[in-house]
């Protein structure tokens, strides 16, 4: 009897698990991959997948904050490349590595601050502001680089992107550390509560005395700064800052976050979901590659899997009235 009850409780908890659908799809993909191509389980491939996912995830953590407040940031892909280029150029010209990294990060902070202030003070929709910022950064990249990559980079810079801790790449460690911080902040701090409250109902939050404008600006700063960090790490990893780095990331990241169950309308979302979403996005690509599915078909299959995975969760949420 007791056991039955316990079983039922676990079952219910599972049914209420927000990311059940994508977890199932993710598991199915992993199992399928192991049947078709044993290299999927090689340490090299796993690290490879995790490293790719980490770039998406680092930005995804911050974008989770942005989406929870009901905002959107499409500039991350280009901010990422621009920050990488700035840092690389500084490092290449002999500026100490710490300072050159800071240069890229400061650029990210500034871009985020501008995004945030324009959204909050001039009431321009976030979609427009960040789309504009995306084009501005794209232009800056071309002006600064004339379209060619910045390389080679000093060793210490490379180390940042290529180094490992206990055999695990720095990038994966950094993204996990950021995930823990992000999840903790979101769930356990006053700031996190304010982020949720603003997305849940901006006016209610304002009347409750929450500093709505400052909080909104802060999430844009957070997302652009994270994008800058990802760009710097990627430049280090590739030993060159590519003008095309992170191109299209804005869509990949936003997709990963939404797949992870974060609401496009604000008020709900989690870092765990974003982690699963980022993994799903990367694993699909990897599995298709290993299964030797023609590159021409990949995008199509990815699209179908995403819709299926999210559809499953949406169906379940409607069924259980989870909003």
């Amino acid at each position: 009897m007791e056991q039955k009850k316990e079983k039922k409780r676990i079952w219910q908890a599972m049914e209420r698990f927000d990311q059940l659908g994508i977890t199932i799809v993710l598991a199915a993909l992993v199992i399928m991959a192991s049947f078709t191509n044993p290299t999927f389980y090689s340490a090299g491939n796993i690290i490879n997948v995790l490293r790719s996912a980490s770039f998406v995830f680092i930005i995804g953590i911050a974008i989770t904050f942005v989406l929870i407040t009901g905002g959107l940031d499409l500039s991350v892909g280009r901010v990422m490349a621009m920050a990488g280029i700035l840092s690389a150029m500084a490092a290449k010209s002999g500026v100490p590595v710490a300072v050159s990294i800071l240069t890229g990060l400061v650029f990210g902070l500034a871009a985020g601050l501008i995004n945030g202030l324009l959204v909050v003070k001039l009431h321009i929709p976030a979609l427009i502001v960040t789309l504009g910022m995306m084009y501005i950064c794209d232009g800056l990249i071309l002006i600064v680089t004339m379209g060619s990559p910045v390389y080679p980079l000093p060793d210490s810079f490379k180390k940042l992107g290529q180094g490992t801790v206990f055999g695990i790449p720095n990038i994966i460690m950094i993204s996990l550390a950021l995930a823990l911080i992000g999840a903790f902040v979101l769930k356990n701090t006053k700031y996190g509560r304010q982020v949720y409250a603003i997305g849940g109902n901006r006016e209610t939050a304002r009347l409750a005395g929450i500093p709505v404008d400052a909080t909104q600006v802060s999430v844009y700063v957070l997302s652009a700064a994270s994008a800058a960090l990802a760009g710097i790490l990627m430049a280090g990893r590739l030993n060159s800052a590519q003008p095309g780095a992170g191109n299209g990331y804005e869509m990949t990241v936003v997709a990963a976050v939404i797949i992870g169950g974060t609401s496009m309308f604000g008020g709900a979302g989690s870092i765990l979901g974003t982690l699963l979403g980022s993994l799903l996005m990367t694993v699909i690509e990897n599995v298709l590659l290993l299964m030797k599915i023609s590159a021409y078909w990949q995008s199509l299959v990815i699209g179908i899997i995403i819709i299926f995975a999210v559809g499953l969760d949406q169906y379940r949420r409607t069924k259980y009235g989870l909003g």
Partner: protein
Amino acid sequence: MGWGKCMSENSSVYVLEMRHMTRRFTGVTALQDVCIHLKKDEVLAICGENGAGKSTLMKILSGSDGWGNYEGEILVEGKVCRFHSTRDAEAAGIEMIYQEISLHLELSVGENLFLGHLPVTRLGTVDWKKVHEISREYLEAVGLEVDPRQKVKTLSTSQQQLLAIARALARKPQVLVLDEPTSALTQTEADNLLRLIRNLKEKHVSCLYISHKLDEVFAIADRICVLRDGRHISTYGAGEASPRQLIEDMVGRKMEILYPKQEVEIGGEILRVEDFCVPHPYRRGHNIVDHVDFVLRRGEILGIAGLVGAGRSELLNALSGAETRGVSGRVWLEGKRIDGSSLREIKEAGIGYVTEDRKKNGFIAGASIRENIVVASLDKITDRGLISRRSEKEYAGKYFEGLAIKAPDMETPLFRLSGGNQQKVVLAKWMMTDRKVMFFDEPTRGIDVGAKAEIYRLMSRMAAEGLGIIMVSSEMPELIALCDRILVLARGRFTAEFSGDEASQEKIMAAAT
């Protein structure tokens, strides 16, 4: 009453019957065994206070509260109908006109009239000539002199209300349901509308007219049906009932229980307002609140009466700091100047504000009861930025139980609760803050009778604790019963002041108009 009465009458004379309607929400029965019969070519008025069950009934009839949620059956022209959506109800010939007008402001008058049914030419393009021709016919029928090509946003509120009726008529309904259609209109506009409804009989349209304005009801209804607390109380033919009788039926015996006013000794001054002005949101150079002065004391419930648009909500918005643009005047809270402060500073100083539209800015629908209760006092449950789960649970639990909020647990999201329980959560949120003055704007709007009494009890308790309370309400009985003093606001100025004992609906109305 009840079963026997419903069955005994011949159904063929009825265009619409609602039999034994019962609707239950978590913890509340909003409708209990209500029967409504609408004869052909008649205007049947349904009266009742807020929370009597009128809107629940209308939601079922319009199909927005679909079949399966309620018990009972709906018959149109003797045939049983099951409405799963508003579309089903429209197909059965039932058209609704709501309090809030639902037109497409960016589209033209003609497009609004025919939305979804635009006549087309043989090529499949819209037949504009025909649209404008037929539009003119229906506009004439409701006495609306506008160009069918005009955009709806250029029309005045009353013109829009008339257009909404024209649109309903264009669909050739059997039954037209009007839910408080005059609430946004001026007296003359309302009179025109009532005349129009009386004439609809000749067009063989039967009307259900929902209102709590008795003068309107007496002016147009063939029969009057009174609901109270979700039950059918009485039905009268025109001329059979006196206004007094109707009010007794609407209010019932519950009068004393409904307003649990505690006797509180009124203390010293807590809020002083001098020469306070708020600019009109639409008319430049005009003040919607125009040089007002008043004083609020500890333990006092101060009522502000007035018509819609008199500036009542705008006054509270400006005093609470929710709206600051162009506001001028001097305000003291416990002797300290607070005018010119930001919303946050005013909140920190101790003013809580339960707003008019709780859905819009009172609570977070997707968040839990716990999260909603603590959202205005996050500082109380955080230590150096970190939230203490234990203290959060303690605080939220205290109010959850203390206010007897009806929900399975504190993790239930607000959109699952009834209006009354949502409002209790909003109150709990402000009770948790260190407030000294509370503003209530229409605190019992859309709440059932039981929850209303609880809201009143909480307000009285706050007054007993020594808070100063300002209450804005359109429901005069609650103002008169709860307030120690009532100020009447008309065109931005106070036109009268009554003590709670000397106030009456007649006196207040006289001062408000």
